[in-house]
């Protein structure tokens, strides 16, 4: 069996004595979606930052294609094909789609110091790549990014990452700020990226979205991996309870039921 695209073994991270992450082990395979679930403060962001090279883990190893790697900077992670797409990150509202797509890697024509930015080509590639992710409404590379919908901007950022050779795509809460329709769109884009053989790490606290696209699931609670399972092994209720801390949720439900009873008897 070949090594997974990305493997974390015993990753821990502490900041000034506080354990943000403890002994996290995960595997991500090409063409699969790993959903990282957890409540606020569970350590999801810290884990993303370690994967994308912003932080170095205190202990533990990261392996890419079976080879151990150390990320000194986000650029190192990028060189290994790991790309992180934040909510609206990497997109510039007042720039055209084509310009935005190629920031820092502009295609040029001409020679020597007179190399000119080939805006036409940039626009064409950007539109083509977005269309390959199912965004058909964007047909003009000069259209301002700020005029796109939230889902389309996500698609632009994802298309950009995939085009520049990302094989592990980390999506940080891509659906959090979106409406139902837009969120469905982003989930479809995730499936498109998956079909292209990209390993997707979807970070979310929306269990429904995770269950729609996920192949593997990992639940983080207070910096520790509380559970790790495959598609179909847990029900939505089980996952929600686990994320909220199980019993705490049951207590809350009982309390609310009691409150409702009291209100009914009063009226």
């Amino acid at each position, binding site marked *: 069996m070949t090594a997974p695209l990305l493997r974390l073994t015993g990753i821990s991270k502490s900041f000034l004595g506080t354990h943000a992450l403890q002994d996290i082990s995960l595997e991500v395979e090409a063409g699969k979606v790993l959903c990282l679930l957890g409540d606020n403060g569970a350590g999801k962001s810290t884990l993303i930052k370690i994967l994308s090279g912003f932080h170095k883990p205190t202990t533990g190893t990261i392996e890419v294609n079976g080879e151990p790697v150390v990320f000194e900077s986000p650029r190192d992670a990028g060189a290994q094909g790991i790309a992180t797409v934040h909510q609206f*990150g990497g*997109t*510039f*509202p007042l720039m055209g789609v084509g310009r935005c797509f190629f*920031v820092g890697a*502009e295609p040029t024509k001409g020679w020597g110091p007179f190399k000119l930015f080939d805006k036409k080509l940039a626009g064409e590639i950007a539109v083509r790549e977005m269309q390959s992710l199912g965004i058909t409404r964007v047909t003009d590379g000069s*259209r*301002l990014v700020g005029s796109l919908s939230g889902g389309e901007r996500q698609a632009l950022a994802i298309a950009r990452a995939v085009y520049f050779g990302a094989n592990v795509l980390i999506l940080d809460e891509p659906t959090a700020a979106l409406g139902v329709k837009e969120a469905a769109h982003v989930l479809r884009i995730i499936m498109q990226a998956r079909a292209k053989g990209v390993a997707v790490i979807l970070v979310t606290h929306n269990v429904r979205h995770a269950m729609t696209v996920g192949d593997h699931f990992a639940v983080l609670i207070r910096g520790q991996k509380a559970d790790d399972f495959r598609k179909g092994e847990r029900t939505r209720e089980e996952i929600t309870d686990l994320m909220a801390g199980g019993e705490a949720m049951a207590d809350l439900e009982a309390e609310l039921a009691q409150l409702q009873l009291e209100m009914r008897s009063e009226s």
Partner: protein
Amino acid sequence: MTTSLPKTTAGAEAAVIPPKQAESRLGQLRHRPEAGALIGTLSVFVFFAIFGGEKFLAGAGTASWLNIAAELGIIAIPVGLLMIAGELDVSVGSVLAGSSMTLAIVSGHWGAPMIVGIVLALALGLLTGLLNGIIVTRSNVPSLVVTLATLFALSGLTLGLSRVTTGTTSVAIAPDPTSKTIFGQLIGGQFEVAIFWWIAVAVLVTVLLQMMPYGNWIFAIGGDKESARATGIPVAKVKIALYMASGFCAALVGVIQTILYNGAQVANGQAFVFNSIIAVVIGGVLLHGGYGSVVGVVLGTLTFAIVNQGIYYTGWNSDWAALILGILILAAVLMNNTFRRLALSHKPRTAKKA
């Protein structure tokens, strides 16, 4: 007078709107950063053409605002670039004064060859820009504060050194014919040669901003600094280069003025500090960066210069010029916001059907 302003603005707009077949081109223009600036320039031109009469439209009248525009424009363009990249540079006033005095003292007071004085003056501009750029990128102190500090420090340094070396605050210089031709010629006895320098700077920077990868970097840095850095753009280097460009251009205007007027004064150029920002903002550049164009800045500069000079041709008291400018700035910013919103709501026709 101010009450008649809106009326003529409306009149100018009506005059500007071409017949219906040109609508698609006009429609495209609406989505460009300079759309508001163009309306502004045409409005004030028509306004002063009406109230200033023939004198304003004659050669001398045109020269008066074109000369003002050229000197301001050479500085406003790099200041506009910096603003697109999300930074301010208010040190240009002192750079202008400092470089003027450098040239006048080196080549006038000490009698060194003109070229030495010119090179030193321009070097002073580059050096100040380098310093501004390094401090802004290393310290994370807002660039307004950093360049305000350089504005005062350099102005003090200029005054102090001028008095120590020459004993006065104004130094005369007798430029040789060559440098007079290149920097300080009055073409036809009216038009400063600076107009050509301005055109050259505008063309150069337009190519850089619109047609080269660097332009894309500048927009990206102003749009979202963190995202820009994440894409691997050398953000600090680009900013330092932009500060050096604005320092260089301010020094260039210092050289031009010194050679044109055969001398330099310590207090030269401080008006450029705010005037350059006004020209850039009227030109449709977003104050916090990420949006703007050279054409817009050129139009904003023209608008400023026309108002600044046009008032003299109306026969009204020139005290009112600043009032018009103040109202104009506000109107321009509001109009530019509207046009930017239009650009952002711009969707292709196919999308509208869906």
